[in-house]
């Protein structure tokens, strides 16, 4: 895993110091140490788009920003990235791309299947812009190349931590629809390549045969004190 792109600041020491951030060009004074999301709220924005889980998992708040004196375009999640003085930013809450519809049980886990739905993958020029744009620090381009080589295991592992924010798709000169492509790859890998858990099927057969029915019904009717005793006496696996 590459280290995620990130400002090294952290919150806390002196909440009273105010810094200036530029939200879509308009300057606002906010306390230092806040995340971009909390700074926007402090400044008076009532967020509807560009906010979701607030914990770095849903991908609703990818934010593009530049720091003063730099040409470099940075990407971070608004809920995870700390504001910096002079930062110019915009949240990009949505990336348009149509999802191909499929029946997963009718697909084959091979490159042909994937390219028939996502022909643009062959246009990858290995520019690595996707990787540089990823707020999760994933090796996006390597995953795309693994798909082209037919190595779905490698691809699925590389993009497992993807939060589907779509910023790579926004930056890609080949116009690859990574979000939906990667979802297909993960499902093909999970369904067809990962070995099945036989012990789960065995337990299902036992339940279907009614193996636990009687014991469970007994516990359901058991007086509370007896149930508590049984609970206290159960052996705990090391």
């Amino acid at each position, binding site marked *: *895993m590459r280290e995620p792109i990130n400002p090294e600041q*952290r*919150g*806390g*020491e002196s*909440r009273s110091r105010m810094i200036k951030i530029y939200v879509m060009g308009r300057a606002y004074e906010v306390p230092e*140490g*806040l*995340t971009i999301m*909390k700074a926007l*709220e*402090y*400044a*008076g*924005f*009532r*967020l*509807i*788009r560009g*906010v*979701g*889980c*607030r*914990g*770095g*998992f*849903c991908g*609703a708040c990818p934010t593009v920003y530049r720091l003063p004196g730099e040409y470099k375009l940075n990407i971070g999640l608004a809920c995870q*990235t*700390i504001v910096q003085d002079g930062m110019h930013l915009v949240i990009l809450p949505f990336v348009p791309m149509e*999802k191909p*519809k*499929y029946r*997963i049980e009718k697909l084959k886990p091979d490159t042909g299947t994937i390219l028939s739905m996502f022909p643009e993958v062959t246009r990858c020029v290995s520019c690595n812009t996707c990787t540089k744009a990823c707020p*999760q620090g994933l090796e996006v381009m390597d995953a795309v190349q693994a798909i082209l080589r037919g190595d779905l295991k490698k691809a*699925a592992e590389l993009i*497992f931590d993807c939060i589907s924010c779509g910023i790579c798709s926004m930056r890609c000169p080949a116009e690859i629809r990574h979000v939906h492509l990667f979802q297909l790859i993960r*499902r*093909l890998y*999970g*369904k067809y390549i990962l*070995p*099945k*858990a036989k012990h*789960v099927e*065995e*337990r*299902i057969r036992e*339940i279907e045969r009614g193996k*636990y029915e009687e*014991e*469970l019904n007994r*516990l*359901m009717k058991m007086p509370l004190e007896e*149930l*508590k005793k*049984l*609970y206290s006496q*159960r052996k*705990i696996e090391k």
Partner: protein
Amino acid sequence: MSEHTGYPPELRKAIKIVEETRPERLKQTYRRLSLEEREKLLKQWHPDYKPGTKRPLKVGPCRGTIVYNEVADVLESWPLIEPRDVDLSNIDYDVDVLVIGGGGAGASAVLWAIYSGVEPDSILLVTKLRFGDANTVKAQGGIQAADRPEDSPVLHYLDTMGGGHFANKPELVKALVCDAPFIIKWLEDLGVIFDKTDEGVMIEYPGGGACRKRLHCARDYTGLEIMRVLKDEVLNYGVPILEFTPAIELLTDPETGGVSGAILWNIETREYYVVRAKVTILATGGFGRLHIAGFPTTNHYGATMDGVVLAYRVGANLRDLDTAQYHPTGVVWPEAIRGELITEKVRSLGAQLVNANGEQFVYQLEPRDVVASAIIAECANGRGIVTPTGAYGVWLDIPMIDEIHGAGTIKRTLPAMYRQFIRHGIDITVEPVLTYPTLHYQNGGVDIDQYTRVLNPQGKPIPNLLAAGEVTGGVHGRNRLMGNSLLDITVFGKRAGITASKIVKEASSKPKLSLKHIEKFMEELRKANIPKTRRAPIILPDYRGERVLLRSLSLKVI
């Protein structure tokens, strides 16, 4: 410790003590508490027992029931609309199944309704944020299912009942533990990537309060992996979905008293829509954003208990809303992400909780309410660590994990956690993290039966209203175990979908629409002198700065 640390000097100094006691602690396991010792700890320190945080409800079917103040505030609230504001004769969506909520429970309900014969285009899924922006994606640690030879649904039943203080509804727990292996198989067949050995054996971890290793995970992105697969499948079926469109009121058939649809509201355009549905499924999630007892929360932005509010107005029974789950390990430092979750999987992998003296003070895998109480007690007794901003916490000794399981384990099995902290300059492979309980889960909620039918206080189903997931109560009693929430939403989401299909098949005619129940409820509010300013559902919390709000003008031009 590494050079790049995101900790200030005083915390770096405090970490030295944790490092000094680590070799000795690696050899020790803290003893487990008896049921009596647990009760004593909870009564003294758990926020559920704090005086002044609760009150009896003044209105509605559960009048007199004690709930948290923040819960009472939204239940004793005026509707957002007056019945005369909306024209019910103009139906915008006439569907078989209306699913309210776009998390894991809603998605599961949609899929099982389809599998059971409901046409995909006769379903409508509505959600206040985007489809999938729910607590489901934030569930990191795993999903329980007793599917190893050493385990059994009976043990899962016992663990769940004991963790819930035996206040759970037995028939719901039985459904939970018996459906569990089927759910794992279903998810596997859909393509969910669980952590497995090369032979396909699930790698399962111990969870707090569980007597067997029973947690199936997908790194520490378990909920995200499940949600995105379910979402992808719903999209494949072409089910109509309305995002940024919460339900603001249910509709009832004045002849049957059954639920017949809902009023929706588009947050962006502010227009309302009328939905008529043969069956309505509430899958709206929990109450974290009400900040119960003043706690920060791990919950997503939309967790405002809307579904409970709507159900209460049509006569639903509510249970166990005088309890809340405070996850033991919320982030204390860095301040910017305070209250966010540090997954219990960290403790499943062996990380211990350590006080300012570098000592353990509780076995790390007691049920969540017990661990949370122990942390609160430790800090109250002066053995916590104080941050430069005045917050309290104890250490969660994450670097131990690599010592127990080998170098690289943390980065491999906890990538989300590693990422969350390294973004702020803290490397959890070498540095412990500061932690304190944070509001996590709505243990109680709308009363249901094992078919997910919503019950009134007399135990009778309210016709054509189902509920699944965190919005409901009874599955987890007064305290949920780790890994039982992802299971709850899939088990009862599935059951809701199946029950919905039966109701659709049996429905002979289209239901009538009214807001009669609201008129009745408003009469009660008037009698109880509830101030008109109190309105619910609140849909989204308001975190705008006070300085701005003081200068806010609502001008009727734009």
